[in-house]
């Protein structure tokens, strides 16, 4: 669709809709200088980014990087202490109600009522959002079928598995046709199979509806599903691009070796190859332009016995490492302060 055709469509829609919705642009979310402090702790320290309409945008980073705090501000659940943000064209502070009408949310922790049936949970949502009743029934069926829970609509939610609950939350988040769907760690705590199916729904959804999807994750491999990702650490966005472009920017292969003497190996790498190495996840880790060709030389010239070698093409882990100097798991293991931020975050 050309830009003018799209604009045309939206100016039509804007005149049709009550409530003074502004004409839609191509920007679904716009964030500038957004900040949030909890007392002394600066959870988010001035982030800027834009999310385009219709894309799957991922906010990636270790636990406690400020992802959930950012998402909470965008969802109007928490007021920024600095900067501004608009979602679907509305300011998250000035036009909170309009933002709330335009977004769907799936939280990390379940927000379903386990004592009610799946259908009751959805009906509660429909009423709370003022979805007209004659439309609600139809829409309810569609979203439940989409996540494969139509047959279980009369079961109480407390009988559901974790994966089913997450699917139901996704269905509920879509019930009022939000312009932007926020997913906070949508696959955390789920088994691999369920994770795959959740991603299928998300990609299906993008194909089927005019919706922008904003999600957070700390699983690097899952970020591959996103059109663009912003890597966040210590409350700041470090880099933002498509996963492909980010991986290309690293350009090097990652080599991890296990040796009988790591310190000697690191020294030898520096001395013989002029390569900086360090220990990550229990292995001597370094990056070189052509990993496979490097390995034979390594064995010949290192002078320290090598127990095993792994050569990997750049992944988002390497992207994270090249921008932050550590792996995401190192960060999560080493920062006890993050627990405090987590505790503040809940409300």
């Amino acid at each position, binding site marked *: 669709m050309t830009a003018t055709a799209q604009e045309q469509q939206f100016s039509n829609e804007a005149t049709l*809709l*009550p*409530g*003074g919705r502004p004409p839609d642009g191509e920007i679904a979310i716009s964030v500038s200088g957004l900040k949030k402090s909890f007392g002394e702790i600066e959870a988010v320290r001035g982030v800027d980014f834009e999310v385009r309409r219709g894309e799957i945008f991922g906010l990636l980073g270790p636990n406690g990087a400020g992802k959930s705090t950012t998402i909470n501000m965008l*969802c*109007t*659940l928490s007021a920024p202490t600095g900067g501004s943000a608009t979602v679907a064209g509305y300011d998250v502070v000035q036009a909170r*109600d*309009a933002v*709330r*009408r*335009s*977004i769907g*949310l799936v*939280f990390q*922790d*379940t*927000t*379903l*009522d*386990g*004592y*009610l049936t799946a259908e*009751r949970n959805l*009906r*509660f*949502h429909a*009423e*709370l*959002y*003022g*979805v*007209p009743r004659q*439309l*609600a029934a*139809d*829409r309810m069926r*569609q*979203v439940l*079928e*989409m996540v*494969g829970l139509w047959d279980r609509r009369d079961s109480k939610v407390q009988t559901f598995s974790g994966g089913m609950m997450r699917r139901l939350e996704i269905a509920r988040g*879509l*019930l*009022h*046709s939000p312009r932007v769907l926020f997913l906070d760690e949508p696959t955390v705590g789920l088994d691999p199979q369920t994770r795959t*199916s959740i991603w*299928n*729904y998300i990609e*299906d*959804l993008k*194909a*089927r*509806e*005019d919706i922008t999807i904003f999600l957070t994750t700390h699983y690097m491999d899952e970020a591959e599903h996103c059109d663009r990702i912003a890597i966040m650490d210590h409350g700041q966005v470090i880099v933002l691009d498509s996963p492909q472009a980010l991986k290309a920017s690293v350009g090097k292969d990652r080599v991890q070796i296990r040796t009988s003497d790591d310190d000697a190996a690191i020294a030898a790498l520096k001395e013989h190859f002029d390569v900086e190495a360090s220990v990550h996840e229990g292995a001597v880790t370094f990056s070189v332009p052509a990993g496979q060709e490097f390995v034979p030389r390594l064995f010949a010239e290192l002078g320290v016995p090598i127990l095993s070698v792994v050569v990997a093409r750049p992944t988002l882990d390497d992207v994270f490492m090249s921008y932050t100097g550590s792996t995401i798991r190192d960060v999560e293991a080493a920062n006890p302060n993050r627990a405090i931020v987590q505790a503040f975050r809940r*409300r």
Partner: protein
Amino acid sequence: MAVETAARKLSTPVTVPGRSWRHEVGAIKIVWQRDLIRFWQDRTRMVASLVQPALFLFVLGTGLSRLTSGSFGGISLKTFMFPGIVAMSTLFTALFSAGSIVWDREFGFMREMLVAPVSRSAIVLGKCFGGATVATLQGLVILCLAGAVGVPYSPSLMLELIGAMLILSFALTALGVAAAARMRNIQSFFGLMQVVVMPMFFLSGALYPLNSLPGWLRALTRVDPITYAVDPMRRLVFDHLNVSSIAQARLAPGVTWNGWVIPILLELGLVALIGLIMLGLGIWEFRLGD
């Protein structure tokens, strides 16, 4: 299953209308309805909460009456206590319902309500109406025992008592909601309730007549809001009993301020007023967190 339905477009996008009275009323209704559904589903709780009033009425009531001559002016202790026990049951149920706000917060459901495009007042009102309805229904169950303690099942009496229960349970739920609004965990809520509820119950005159009390106790009973709900209920019950004026004066003289007997309607109005103040406080607290 995703593959099967993938072909079928989600063709009915709905639009969320702007804020309107109808929408707010719908939100109040659905929050209220949720409390009712959960009350209805929880039969165990319904039966379990019958145990305590039954113990008070039949065990304590029967046991203690051995101390007196068994009755006063033809009125047994059980009959006397009955309105108090109805109020007690309402009291506990209403506060328990209000406590579910903390529960919802702890288990996440509160977030579902807080991110919805409805006013905080609608959520608080729905919750207060829900608690009031549930507590009145629970009181109604106790009301069924009237015959067993010598209180007649007169339709007018029953209606009057239900009205009084509605006012009382609304006020108490609002009080509970105001207390629960900022609380993070259910233990501290029930901790607070232990400190507040038992004194409120014991000072209310549910178990003893309010006249000829020592000054300090007299003063305390007059500041307890439950007093102004128990007393009208007792007077309403006594109006339907065949009692001598001496017994009436001894057992259900009405609450006095400086010797002036407060009319029933004023008493209930007072309770309703406290409820409205608490409701306002609850709404204010919810907005504060927004």
